[in-house]
């Protein structure tokens, strides 16, 4: 398969580093886009301002990269296992929000994210025979 080598290359464990990284970068780009259109009400000027912002295009690039990474992952795993694993992004995004946007992290939020991470740990990162195949 022509896509086989591409898939094989990307399906290794480091996908789980690349995916959250680009996911976080995407959220930062969208937050910056939102700050550009903050003063506009939702309408034509909203779209014009958003499309004129470099951040929205940065977000599109991140989405395209994420899309390729995600399709490669889905070739190998069931949705029910692979999708929850992407939640590893939360820890990174919360940290980024705090560092770059100076959003406070409350104890509750921190505990919530820890629970989410615990849930991911229970589901497991290792592909298993029972859920590795979709049928």
């Amino acid at each position, binding site marked *: 398969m022509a896509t086989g080598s591409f898939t094989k290359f990307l399906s290794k464990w480091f996908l789980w580093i690349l995916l959250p990284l680009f996911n976080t970068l995407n959220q930062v780009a969208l937050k910056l886009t939102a700050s550009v259109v903050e003063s506009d009400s939702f309408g034509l000027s909203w779209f014009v301002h958003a499309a004129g912002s470099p951040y929205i295009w940065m977000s599109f690039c991140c989405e395209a990269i994420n899309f390729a990474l995600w399709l490669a992952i889905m070739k190998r795993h069931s949705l029910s296992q692979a999708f929850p694993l992407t939640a590893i992004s939360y820890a990174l995004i919360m940290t980024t929000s705090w560092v770059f946007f100076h959003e406070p992290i409350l104890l509750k*939020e921190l505990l919530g994210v820890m*629970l989410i991470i615990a849930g991911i740990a229970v589901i497991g990162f290792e592909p298993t025979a029972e859920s590795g195949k979709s049928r």
Partner: protein
Amino acid sequence: MTLSPEILLLIPFCIIAETLSVLCFKHGVNEDEKNPVDVGFITMVLTRPLFWLGIFFWGMELVAWVVVLEHTPLSIAFPLMSLVYCSVPLAGNLFLHEKLPPRQWLGAVLIAAGVALVGSTGA
């Protein structure tokens, strides 16, 4: 910062749109795996209507999501979206007949509890 009713409705809209989008992509990938002729990655994405439908749902979500972020801190809005970590496995089980062992349900419950905790700080 408070969440307005409009924003509270936009968040479930994002969750449903993302679930449908991911379902389309996964089903498209499954169909591609059955295809004995390898069409290549780009061709696969461009020629399958399911991928276009998935991209359509993704686009709907993107617009709604930027509106949400205009009014909500990223550290609140993004964890709320983690409800998709319950809806996607459920949809995979219901529509794509994927196995969903108890271990994965437990994981989903933990994630939902985390979401509730984070969401409780938003109002």
